[in-house]
């Protein structure tokens, strides 16, 4: 009996150690950088705010989660001690994230950022019980206004725009005329980006062959992403792209094959300086600042945000260490201009039916 209790205690200790050292441990950025350089007009908050960020993968995943963490960290550096950011990362399982969201709400956090589409329904459940807290989530457009929610903001990135730009450059850069895509699942932000990329690549007329994307059916299977890249490369692709935190596996294979990579969500160039040509970086700073401002003014929700190339929420960041032909880069920058000025509507290209339906709806509303 004593041995059993001792064993149970040891296992419990092991589990506790794992939990305390594990990936879902909240981390705070409140103590960071009192010495950070302030810009000429620093963003200020009039009272102390506590923000919780919940992410489905690691905050340093070079992808979706890192884009949010980097934005909150940047704002915190600007604001200082008046803004406390707490992160719960790697909460891919929705029940775990739901528990964290409710926990933070119970602790009196002012703003809770559930950074994942899958968190939506759980977040709304908690938002209903805590009307004084601002909840934000994405990729999503539904801020719950039609259901009576006044404390929810939604956001999405028009990832297809940067995908389109990357696709144009990838097709022009490819010597084999074959580009490859390594995707997680064919849904959400990944689908938007991939559809945009393939549309951009096809628009150049330079592709000799169109390889369908390979989906690993996972966001974090680094080895499978590497295998997917190997498969595409062995079929002639010399310029690849992909989405989600698994991409380091794929980029490494592209690097071995001396190919090129176009990325999305977070800047991946630092790890593969000779391989990553350009990345569509999501910059959530302006969105988050607007939400903070609204929250402090008593407006806790009711809006939906979009990151676009036009509003600067998405930027195509070129890696200076990779020299590409001037005409390729110009094609990319021309595409950015065309999209930003509305001359090219990528969503209409990738989702013609949905765009037509939205247009008809707007026209009907205007006619009333």
């Amino acid at each position, binding site marked *: 009996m004593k041995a059993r209790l001792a064993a149970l205690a040891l296992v419990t200790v092991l589990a506790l150690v794992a939990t305390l050292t594990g990936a879902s441990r909240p981390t705070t950025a409140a103590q960071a950088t009192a010495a950070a350089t302030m810009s000429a007009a620093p963003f200020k908050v009039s009272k102390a705010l506590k923000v919780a960020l919940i992410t489905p993968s690691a905050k340093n995943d*070079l992808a979706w989660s890192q884009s949010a963490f980097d934005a909150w960290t940047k704002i915190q550096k600007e604001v200082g001690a008046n803004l406390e950011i707490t992160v719960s990362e790697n909460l891919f399982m929705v029940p775990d994230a739901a528990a964290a969201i409710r926990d933070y709400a119970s602790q009196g956090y002012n703003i809770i950022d559930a950074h994942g589409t899958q968190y939506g329904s759980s977040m709304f459940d908690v938002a209903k019980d805590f009307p004084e807290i601002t909840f934000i989530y994405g990729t999503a457009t539904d801020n719950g206004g039609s259901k009576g929610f006044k404390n929810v903001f939604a956001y999405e990135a028009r990832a297809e725009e940067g995908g389109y730009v990357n696709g144009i450059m990838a097709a022009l850069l490819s010597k084999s005329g074959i580009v490859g895509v390594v995707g997680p699942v064919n849904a959400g932000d990944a689908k938007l980006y991939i559809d945009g990329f393939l549309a951009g690549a096809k628009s150049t007329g330079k592709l000799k062959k169109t390889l369908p994307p390979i989906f690993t059916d996972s966001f974090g299977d680094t080895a499978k992403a590497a295998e997917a890249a190997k498969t595409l490369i062995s*079929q002639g692709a010399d310029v690849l792209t992909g989405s989600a935190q698994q991409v380091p596996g794929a*980029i*490494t294979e592209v690097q071995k094959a001396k190919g090129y990579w176009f990325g999305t969500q977070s800047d991946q160039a630092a790890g593969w300086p000779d391989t990553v040509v350009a990345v569509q970086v999501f910059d959530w700073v302006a969105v988050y600042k607007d939400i903070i401002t609204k929250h402090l003014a008593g407006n806790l929700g009711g809006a939906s945000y979009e990151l676009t190339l036009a509003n600067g929420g998405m930027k195509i960041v070129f890696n200076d260490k990779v020299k590409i032909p001037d005409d390729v880069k110009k094609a990319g920058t021309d595409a950015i201009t065309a999209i930003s000025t509305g001359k090219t509507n990528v969503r209409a290209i990738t989702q013609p039916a949905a765009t037509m339906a939205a247009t008809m709806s707007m026209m009907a509303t205007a006619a009333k």
Partner: protein
Amino acid sequence: MAAETSSILLIAAQGVAASAAYLYASLGEGIGQRAGVYNLGVDGVILMGAFSAFYAVYSGLSPVVAVIIAALVGLVFGVIMAFVSVTFKAEQGISGIGLYMLGLGLSTLLFDTLVKTPRPVSGGFVRVPIPVLSDLPIIGPVLFDQTPMVYGALLLVPVAWYVINRTTPGLNIRAVGQNPQAADAAGLNVTRIRYLSLMVGGALAGVAGASLSIAQTNIFQQNMTNGLGFIAVALVYFGGWSPIGILFGALLFSIVTTLQLWIQTLGIGISPSLISMLPSIVTIIALIFAVTAYKTQTPAALGVAYRRDEN
């Protein structure tokens, strides 16, 4: 026709390469289970091995030294598992899950502290074609143009089979897993044999991690195994606790996994989610045939803690 044959060979070669991590982990787990202890923490040990090997190469050490380090780290985890399950006789399933969480958490903590962001290493294993053999038609490019880690995994199969089935230590392991009371009565030290089996199993799981991070991918990322360790445990059951059966299972699973990636590039209009189910479906079908076709060698005392004072 030549292009199709070439594609089939590429798929097979890629599948064989991907099977190495499964082989190391499954063969190691098989040894532990033959001694009567199952370790569900294999995935966590693989992660620790993967990080250890990656960090060793990242720090400038040779890949061979990195594999040794990964094996030692895995061995330590094997000792932990033995301490909890054999000495303290904890429920093996629970202690295994605890070990998995420890490996997952610790590898993530070490990565976040020491490396901070995903980055590749350049000093890992590369493919080494074996002269003459790699030129053989069909099997040449599939089996003999691989990394040393793949060769090691394939060679481990007959070695493991021979040790388990034809040597005294192997007989002792099987005796302890089949009937520890009788083994004890015959003078075998059940505790010592189970400890050693788990240490070997842990070491091989560590080597599986090294195969993943410095041979198959040349990178480490948090939780990059994505459940590989649990599949490795399943392969032991699939293979009927036989190294030959485990080899068959690992190759089948890996090659079909690679095949489904290739199928997606054909654009045949089937949902990628359905196609990605293929490895699991094929493995289950094969398991049904295997269970009905031959008698498995389930260790009778598997999962049961041995208490000398109760016998």
